[in-house]
């Protein structure tokens, strides 16, 4: 098995381990959540003692955590993640209804963040003016000093789209990494030689600098997905957008552990998948370059 194959296998194993460990944690927390052992139907005065006992017996199967874990995982494989305590709906339905908005928000937010990053970092690297670089760094530094929730509040105040708030939360981090990577690439001996030989700035940037930094930029892109998902909580919660971030926030406020833990495991899988994909693509590019 080649290096790439081993890498892909390592990522798949990591994803499987996350599903198993995350599933176990979810099942344990759901099992230990307050109210798990009680059933409102037992209070129904129309039910006789035998019916109440039958309801209790039906739950008896789930009392053992290990047994509950296996049945939870079996249901999860079929897309059944249980019911939300606070909203009284199946977790699957809630996720299905809210996922499109969050996906749209993340795609636009990330696209905008990377557009800003590319525009500022590439122009700073191309122009190589200290004043321009200082201005761009100050701008990103200012956004870096603002809590994500404050940016979300400002987007409400000025009636700006939520995607822009996500972009402004992610952009300072991606800009910093990208700028540092570009500057490091510019200090390489072959770039200095290329400049000494009189190659144009555009040719140096796009033919010699950018190809070097692409694998690392892909890794940053993977991390930026995680940042954007994290930013979705305050943005959706404070902007009143009914997405998964708002759902997680409502679940946290309502201590709805079955819902919250399932969302967290799914979000972890998405971020792991994004990071793994970025790593594998970067590995493929490095392999082609070699």
């Amino acid at each position: 098995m080649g290096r790439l194959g081993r890498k892909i296998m390592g990522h798949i194993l990591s994803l499987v381990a996350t599903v198993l460990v995350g599933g176990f944690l979810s099942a344990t927390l759901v099992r230990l959540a307050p109210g798990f052992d009680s059933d409102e139907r037992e209070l129904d005065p129309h039910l006789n003692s035998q019916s109440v006992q039958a309801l209790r017996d039906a739950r008896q199967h789930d009392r053992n955590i290990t047994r509950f874990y296996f049945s939870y995982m079996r249901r999860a494989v079929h897309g059944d993640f249980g019911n939300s305590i606070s909203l009284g709906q199946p977790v699957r339905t809630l996720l299905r209804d809210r996922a499109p908005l969050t996906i749209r928000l993340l795609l636009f937010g990330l696209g905008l963040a990377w557009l800003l990053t590319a525009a500022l970092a590439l122009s700073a690297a191309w122009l190589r003016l200290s004043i321009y670089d200082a201005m761009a760094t100050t701008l990103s530094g200012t956004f870096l000093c603002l809590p994500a929730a404050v940016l979300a509040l400002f987007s409400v105040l000025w009636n700006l789209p939520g995607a822009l708030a996500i972009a402004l939360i992610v952009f300072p981090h991606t800009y910093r990494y990208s700028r540092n990577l570009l500057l490091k690439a510019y200090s390489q001996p072959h770039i200095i030689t290329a400049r000494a030989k009189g190659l144009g700035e555009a040719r140096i940037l796009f033919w010699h600098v950018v190809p070097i930094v692409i694998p690392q930029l892909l890794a940053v892109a993977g991390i930026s997905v995680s940042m954007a998902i994290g930013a979705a909580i305050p943005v959706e919660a404070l902007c009143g957008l009914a997405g998964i971030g708002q759902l997680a926030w409502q679940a946290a406020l309502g201590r709805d552990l079955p819902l919250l833990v399932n969302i967290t495991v799914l979000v972890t899988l998405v971020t792991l998948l994004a990071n793994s994909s970025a790593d594998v693509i970067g590995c493929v590019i490095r392999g082609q370059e070699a």
Partner: protein
Amino acid sequence: MSFRQKIACVVLALVMGASLGANWLAPDGYARQYREVTDAAPSRTHWLGTDELGRDRFARVLYGTRISLLLAPAAALLSTLAAAVIGGLAGYLGGAWARLAMAVTDLFLSLPWLFLLITARALMPLNVSPLTSVAVTFLLLGTLGWTAAARVLCASAAALRKSDFVRQARAAGTSGTRLFWVHVAPNLKPVLYAQFWLSIPVFILSEANLGILGLGIAEPMPSWGSLLKELEGLVSVGEQPWKFVSLILLIVVVTSFQLLLSGQEEIAA
């Protein structure tokens, strides 16, 4: 130390000094209500006006700054200690220990920070006393924020383990425990200091985010998070500009930390 860093130091000292002197600067405390002047504009008696419950905003900003500025370094200390134990030992021991520790660290790192925070916060009771909520927030930040630092410390400890002087000490028959405490741990100090200082602004911002989302420090105790929650009801920026004082103070403090830490980032890497 550069000129900008000196200014940052002075600003931080002033803000910290004012917040520590809150008992003298605002002797009436942060919870006293002036029911006849609720949501008032700045005046001689209330320099930054009052909030919607009639509490003096200046007092709340001072006490809130004190809580946030004491909470963040305390959480940073806890997370740095956890990172030192987990990352430092994993790097020093190497092999399967290092792989296991880094696998757990990577898993934690792949989780979006705010998701992790609110999930862990929801596991604990929300209706608690203000002091308990301070302790919960501090423990939460401290126990969950060690991962990035542990990764750096693991790499530094692994590099030290392979260094010539450690190999020489091992060849001379120095025991493993002595090797770690006498030769490895003291050389990790610069990285530990850097990680400690770098964590502070991150925790300040995290506490603010938690506070605005209603999952931070409980009322009536103020913190930057709960003070920033006031901005939620604003219709325009120019409407009540004095409500932005806590935000400006937060930006100034975090910027000062960033300026002060510009040199530390290289050590931390």
